């Protein structure tokens, strides 16, 4: 569904590439997460994929359409939720929805809601019920909560039935309940529409549910795969051990040929061994044994930490 090949973007007067030769693919119907710290190049990537920014090099296609040469076709195929809300605060919720519907040619222009096509009015009524804003649909969106505005934006962006829904850090600035409601809503959207979801975030918990994750740092892809792949491939499994006789323990570990780093406590790389076999081979009485089960957060910090060294 999305193919990115050696994509490069250098902003005017910048000394470094914001996106530096990245390549990846997203399959149809996938929940794909582009993860990375601030300044990693996530928004730049999403801006290029949604045609609002021209790349410096490389190419990208959405459902076979090139984002530069066939920008208009790409725009028909995508829906976008921007980092900062893109609702017009002066308009009502319905007027914002109507504006979108008219820009995408879904209905013919009429100067008021009452004169719009009956199908449109029905769609708006259904949408308002779904969002629980039947009474507020004709009120200015500036009176809406942050979470409600986000939900309205998602509903609006799905009006033209896009093949890919891009969400650029959609939960930034939202409180915890609003964030949770948004995710439930998004899960519902995935279940019912099968839309490909392309999300950028720097919140790790939002990436745990992804089908695949691409981790960007300083404009480069530093890891790619399922959350389990990333945990498995990029985080070292180790066991921490310590003893009252630290000198003896250090000597014994060296004699046994285990790879250690730091300490005390001493960090033993499992390196294919089981924790059990390692512990059985150590004769020095141990006072501390701690196994390490990596989380995605560990993986992320490890990956991003390594590249910033």
């Amino acid at each position, binding site marked *: 569904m999305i193919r990115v090949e050696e994509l490069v973007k250098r902003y005017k007067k910048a000394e470094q590439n914001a996106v530096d030769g990245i390549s990846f693919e997203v399959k149809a119907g996938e929940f794909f997460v582009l993860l990375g710290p601030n300044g990693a190049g996530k928004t730049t990537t999403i801006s290029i994929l949604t045609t609002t920014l021209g790349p410096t090099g490389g190419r990208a296609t959405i459902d076979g359409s090139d984002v530069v040469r066939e920008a*208009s076709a790409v725009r028909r195929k995508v829906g976008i939720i921007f980092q900062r809300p893109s609702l017009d605060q002066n308009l009502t919720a319905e007027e914002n929805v109507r504006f979108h519907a008219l*820009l995408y040619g879904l209905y013919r222009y009429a100067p008021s809601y009452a004169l719009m096509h009956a199908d449109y009015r029905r769609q708006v009524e259904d949408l308002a019920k779904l969002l629980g804003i039947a009474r507020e649909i004709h009120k200015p969106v500036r009176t809406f909560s942050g979470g409600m505005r986000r939900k309205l934006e998602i509903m609006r962006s799905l009006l033209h039935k896009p093949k890919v829904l891009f969400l650029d850090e959609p939960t930034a600035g939202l409180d915890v309940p609003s964030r949770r409601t948004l995710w439930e809503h998004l899960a519902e959207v995935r279940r019912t529409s099968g839309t490909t979801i392309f999300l950028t975030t720097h919140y790790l918990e939002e990436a745990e549910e992804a089908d695949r994750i691409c981790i960007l740092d300083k404009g480069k892809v530093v890891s790619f795969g399922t959350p389990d792949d990333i945990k498995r491939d990029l985080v070292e499994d180790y066991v921490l051990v310590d003893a009252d006789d630290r000198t003896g323990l250090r000597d014994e570990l060296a004699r046994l040929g285990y790879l250690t780093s730091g300490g005390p406590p001493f960090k033993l790389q499992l390196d294919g061994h089981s924790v059990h076999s390692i512990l059985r081979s150590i004769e020095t009485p141990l006072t501390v044994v701690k196994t390490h089960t990596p989380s995605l957060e560990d993986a992320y910090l490890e990956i991003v930490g390594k590249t910033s060294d």
Partner: protein
Amino acid sequence: MTEASAILALAHRDFIKLLRDRQRIVADFAFPLIFIGILGTTLQAGFGERAGINLMDYVFTGVLAQTVWQSSALGLISLLADREQDFSQEIFVSPISRYSIILGKILGESLVALPQALAIIVFGFVLQIHMSPDQLWRMALALGVVALFGGAFGVIVLANLGSQRAANQIFPFVLLPQFFLAGIFNPIQNLPLPLDILSKIAPMRYAVDLMRDAYYGGLPSSQQVQLFDATTNLAIIAAMFVVFMVVGTFLFVRAERNR
């Protein structure tokens, strides 16, 4: 049909925003009324006889065209405001043509400018400026052209401006000289050569002259006031409109994408 609906939706949005912005309505109406009420009256009292024309009528028609042209041009800055408030993203990711987006904005800002013209005309009646139904009809048509032309001028100016702040700083330098070069308050038939050249390349001049064609057409004083006939003015305006629109849209879109 998609493009037409989208253009109308863009224009509709701008007009709705005006209706909901009372401060802007008051500010928009105050300036032209001050110009005509104070400047027109004092000019007529001081120089009217020597000029050989009614300077009240002269300033009235000049300010009418200038207000609408300028309002429409300045209104285009809202495209930059949209960009800063991230609303333009919603517009620019839609599949409609970039020219439709700009055309919708110009149409919207023209609609926003026209209520001001109505207020000025009403004020003109209060000041006992004579306007026959025939004159009013011609002026209404001219106002439509002037508003669209001002919008196109706004596009070419803002095409290379990065922010609303930059636009607010640049626009006075672009507009103020035209107040005098376009002959809003002062006849410009006998300007020194350098100023005459500048006057001839000042787009506002043709908007003002078209309005005077509409007002003075057929009147005995028309020879003293009009610079070109309506057909010539319309041809120059049409040519400038196309150039401003095409080049302005191209530059604006390029600046948007090639950041």
